[in-house]
């Protein structure tokens, strides 16, 4: 008899580049200069992300964004941003090594996360392209749903990553956790 399909799959995402960007969106020079480097506008709607080419930008706050890139691109993108924003009141920091992303996918993925989060994870509310900083099992995380599929990305500080993975494994156990956690 074939094994039933797992309800949840946990995976550690490959290392990626992350750039913490802060600046004043009311200063027209700032979003224009950033868009010149990225090739698209920063998302201004709270708790949404925008993706094009090799970069994804997540809204973190009214003046804060996280730019995700390929690991090898992080330094180059940060350098280009810093050069494009020389005299503006803003900050660009490459922070990719500081956190680890997990992918929680499958039809029961939201049920696993809901055990440790207070966010409304109703697929109709937390839709494709939504992101939010919140708490998962009491640790600060950034949750992102990149597409319509039931794939959620959980980004946690590297120092919490072992705890986060242990917690996710335990929470996913009852749904048939197909863990490719290597």
């Amino acid at each position: 008899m074939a094994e039933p399909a797992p309800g949840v799959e946990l995976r550690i995402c490959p290392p990626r580049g992350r750039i913490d960007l802060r600046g004043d969106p009311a200063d027209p020079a700032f979003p224009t200069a950033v868009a010149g480097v990225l090739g698209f506008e920063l998302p201004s709607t709270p708790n949404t992300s925008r993706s094009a080419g090799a970069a994804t930008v997540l809204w973190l706050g009214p003046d804060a964004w996280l730019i995700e890139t390929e690991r090898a691109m992080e330094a180059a993108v940060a350098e280009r941003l810093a050069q494009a924003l020389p005299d503006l009141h803003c900050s660009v920091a490459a922070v990719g090594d500081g956190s680890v992303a997990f992918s929680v996918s499958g039809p029961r993925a939201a049920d696993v996360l809901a055990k440790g989060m207070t966010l409304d994870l109703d697929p109709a509310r937390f839709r494709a392209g939504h992101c939010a900083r919140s708490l998962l099992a009491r640790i600060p995380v950034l949750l992102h749903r990149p597409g319509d599929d039931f794939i959620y990305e959980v980004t946690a500080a590297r120092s919490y990553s072992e705890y986060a993975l242990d917690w996710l494994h335990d929470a996913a156990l009852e749904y048939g956790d197909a863990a490719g956690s290597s």
Partner: protein
Amino acid sequence: MLLIPCPWCGARDESEFTCGGEAHIRRPADPDALDDAHWADYLFMRANPKGSHRERWCHSHGCGRWFNVERDTVTHGIVSVYRMGEPPPGGDGS
């Protein structure tokens, strides 16, 4: 548990927030002109009303923003939420 409507992120659980105490406390314009009693009053003395209370809250595990909440201290009902620098909906923010 409170469900607090962050002006940017919408309704979120209280565990994501930090309470910063009474809102709209003004630093005295000329601290040197105050005697100890008035300075202590500015530093330490806070209203403790039964009913409507204006407080500062920070969405520390969300967007990281400080904002104001008008909360009923008896029912825990949230009357209004407004951003820093905005006048309180009920008026008289001084």
